[in-house]
């Protein structure tokens, strides 16, 4: 079974001492848990300023360590805010044809429902590029509002937490373009319940490591009470469908 972790961070984090500060460390962690591949965002783009020259150099150095990536794809962090954002225009992103992008509207203080961001979401939707948003950062009501105003935009909800199943159910019921990352769905039976109610193709295995635990969600994946094809769908199939033609494996 192919296992793809759709939510990983690469680089140091301010609140802990972690081993995934470079690609070698990342691959060692993937190997330890038998995870075949992952999507990573660089912590320099999340906790630092994505626009700064230092961040660009740092990210380039981290990702250049592997000339032909076989274990990861990059979820670049964007700030859709014009000349004060990163990059300046959506065309800069579209040219790189990323598998997915990540946005942090609360952390980076931009309005995801404002006119500039709306133009970005239209472009991303038109080019089938999903955007990942951390529910712990920006809240499910904002994600719901974004999904409502951009129904063609595919949204991967990260770190939704174990207390929000009612809100997640409504999101999945209402918006076909919304997918949920499973790492923090740790209420008893949560993954199976959502899979049975809304389909395993809406649930994307992920962990949020190293900020969040990866061992528990990985163990859960091996012990889900679901048919094998459904488990395979959660493990990597749903991510493959979400990413589409840019899926590299």
């Amino acid at each position: 079974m192919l296992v793809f972790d759709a939510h990983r961070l690469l680089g140091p984090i301010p609140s802990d001492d972690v081993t995934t500060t470079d690609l070698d460390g990342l691959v060692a962690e993937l190997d330890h848990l038998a995870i075949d591949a992952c999507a990573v965002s660089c912590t320099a783009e999340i906790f630092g300023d994505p626009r700064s020259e230092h961040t660009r150099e740092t990210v380039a150095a981290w990702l250049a360590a592997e000339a032909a990536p076989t274990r990861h794809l990059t979820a670049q962090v964007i700030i859709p805010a014009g000349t004060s954002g990163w990059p300046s225009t959506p065309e800069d992103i579209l040219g790189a044809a990323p598998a997915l992008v990540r946005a942090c509207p609360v952390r980076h203080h931009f309005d995801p429902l404002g006119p500039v961001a709306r133009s970005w979401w239209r472009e991303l939707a038109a080019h089938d590029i999903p955007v990942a948003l951390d529910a712990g950062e920006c809240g499910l009501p904002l994600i719901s509002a974004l999904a409502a105003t951009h129904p063609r935009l595919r949204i991967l909800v990260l770190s939704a937490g174990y207390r929000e199943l009612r809100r997640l159910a409504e999101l999945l019921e209402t918006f076909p373009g919304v997918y949920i990352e499973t790492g923090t769905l740790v209420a008893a039976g949560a993954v199976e319940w959502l899979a049975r109610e809304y389909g395993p193709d809406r649930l994307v295995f992920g962990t949020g490591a190293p900020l969040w635990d990866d061992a528990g969600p990985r163990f859960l994946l091996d012990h889900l009470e679901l048919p094998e094809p459904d488990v395979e769908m959660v493990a990597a199939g749903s991510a493959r469908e979400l990413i589409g033609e840019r899926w590299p494996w």
Partner: protein
Amino acid sequence: MIVDIHGHLGSPGDFFVPEPSAQWLLRMADRVGIDAIGVSHFVALNLDARRGNTMAIDLATQYPGRLGAWLVANPHDRDGDRVIADQLDVPGVWGLKVHPDFHSVPVLDRRYERYLRLAADHSVPVLSHGQTRSDYSDPADLAEVARRHPGLTLLVGHAGLWTDGFARAAELAAAQPGLHLEIAGSRLTTRWLERMVAIAGADKVLFGTDANFLDPRVGLGKVVHSRLADADRELVLGGNAVRLLGRRLPPHRQPSREQDLLGRRG
């Protein structure tokens, strides 16, 4: 033997849990090799300790050897200690559960004293909710409880809950006889589990999952996939619980599946 020292049954009330039943919990326990689970009932924690404790005892009676009962000590119940005293030797009862945050009573408040004396006198462990920086259950306050009650076995639930408090909780457990860490919680990582064992000692850390609040499979995975030495992992998963619960924990039904699980690691 794998013992989940921190479980619940019933529905928590403030959010939706898809699988609140004992049947589901035991089916998942069988699926991953957890031999026994100690549970307090959400009715006891949220509403009515007397009624909920009876419900927990009924479940422990219905599933002997698989479910143990933690009896919730309600500090607002003036005769609660008398009721619990009559229940302590019922087969299947593991000890007392205190949740100072739910009850809005600091664990050092005198209203808990009669319960703590009862537990010490009867040599039953006390499992407390533990929450770093809480006015009610900070691990330093729990360490003070252990200091005031020599001989009492006190478990710091969630090892203090928040990651930035794990190291201090582990240092407190290392320094205070009787004080142990229980590791259930969504914030725990294998990285922090390994550090807690290194600081407090493997004999001071106990496996718990917070099921059915949380999914027991997730909690077990953190221990199974950690880089603990096998002997330490065995203590955390069940060895410590067997030692602390003594005769209250019946012999397990079958050879542990621990080795199977370890064999399937990464």
